């Protein structure tokens, strides 16, 4: 259980997995990647803030043709988590337009990507229907 690593560094594992964003202390803009400065106001100080684990699907697509090595089909989406937009796959849902809808309520979920030679398990995230 302790021997896990998140797929991306803004995914916090543990009892209550959640995402964290780097929030600009000056203007409140939120980012998920390593920052040099704020793209909105150019300030350079950030604090980490937890992102709500429940949200609403603001946009999605069902990808049926992807680059080699990317398993299809999958649902790519933008999830609005209390005003912070998050990029994610929708998981634990049939990847077809009958089961996925704009405005659908979803919650964060995690899954295993497998274990490496050192016995470390990588954990990914997605959003599943509430």
């Amino acid at each position, binding site marked *: 259980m302790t021997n896990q*690593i*998140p*797929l*991306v*560094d*803004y995914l916090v594992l543990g009892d209550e997995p959640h995402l964290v964003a780097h929030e600009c202390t000056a203007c409140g*803009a*939120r*980012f*998920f*990647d*390593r920052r040099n400065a704020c*793209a*909105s106001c150019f300030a350079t100080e950030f604090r980490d803030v937890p992102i709500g684990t429940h949200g609403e*699907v*603001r*946009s*999605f*697509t*069902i*990808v*049926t*043709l*992807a*680059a*080699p*090595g*990317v*398993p*299809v089909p*999958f649902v*790519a*989406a*933008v999830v609005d988590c209390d*005003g*912070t*937009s*998050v*990029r*994610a*796959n929708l998981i634990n849902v049939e990847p077809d*337009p009958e089961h996925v809808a*704009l*405005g659908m309520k979803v919650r964060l979920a995690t899954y295993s*990507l497998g274990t*490496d*030679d*050192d016995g*470390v398990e*990588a954990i*990914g*995230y997605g959003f599943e229907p509430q």
Partner: protein
Amino acid sequence: MASDDIWILGIKMTKFGKHPDKDTVDLAAEAAMAALADGGVTMRDIGVLAAGCLMEANSGMGQRLQKQIGQTGIPVYNVANACATGATALRTAIMAVKAGECDMGLAVGVEKLAGAGLLGGGGTPKTDGKTWTPKGRFGAVAPTDGRVGTDAMPGTFAQVGMEYGHKYGGATFELFARISEKNHSHSTLNPLAAYSKRFTLDEIMNDMMIAYPNTRPMCSANCDGAAAAVVVSDAKLKTLSGEQQRRAIKVSASVLTSDPWQEACQVLPDVNTLTRIAATQAYEKAGIGPEDLDLVELHDCFATAELVHYDNLQLCPEGGAVDFFESGAPWRDGTTPVNVSGGLQSKGHPIAATGIANIWEVCHHLRGEAGDRQIEGAKVGLAHVIGLGSACGVHILERAAA
């Protein structure tokens, strides 16, 4: 006294499609020499060359072209700006002329993409396969394409259209397919289009799904092609022949923008804000409103993208893109014909050529030379491109008053 207006003196695009017997320099040379001939000038008259070829962005396309069509020692700017590369090349030439560095410039865009398949996406696969190692700005231990959304273009632009539907409603799979039906129908009149086949709505909706709601015919067609334009200052144009002056097309606005920061723009590319800003700036510069446009060539890289740009280019009231399409306005016999060339979905999208080819299309109509697909009496047109990342080019063009 001459104004600081810039004019398009000569412009041409090659046939878009498959050119297995030609390399990128061949295609660029064909377009460039044809544009020079169209303008009645030679490389000797040209004071600046701007060239783009996105897939060969570090190859010195401008100088490679010069070595085939004329080395005169002029400055060359090799530009790359995603799908706005052609518009960026044109704008670079325009800026040089406008700045007074020279009185005539040549812009060229070329690409060989036939059979290129899916663009964007993939990422670097895990090479050692032994230990999860965080890499890059997200500290990712594995490629994120397909695990954290999609990096590929069809799904990215699908989400752009779906987001519009979420905001305003009415954006169904069938509506997007009907936009594609329009463009494929328009393409049947364009002999330079890569594909000029009419599709029924059923055929479009039942074709191979790429990224819902975009099926294959709703995606831009990868193909080979080139386009080139000669731009000239107002003062220089006045010294040229009556015929050259009569066929010259005024560049009433030339605008390039990048995307200003918006809340979600680093999550899903925001292709809306920078297009809206570019259009607003262009209308202001040209002293022209969207209602004055006789035709529009906009960046329909996917059917889902065309819908949002009706709104971004302000061809309709905000939130009114679905109604705008339903009214029949963007069909070639409608009030604001959009993509009468067939658009990127059928004319094709050789990336760096696109931003000049769509200006050629508009000029072709403004000159009254568009043959079977001529929009009668066209006086004003707008050409728009967007490259993800993002860069947006908007040009407003007007027929010479004479």
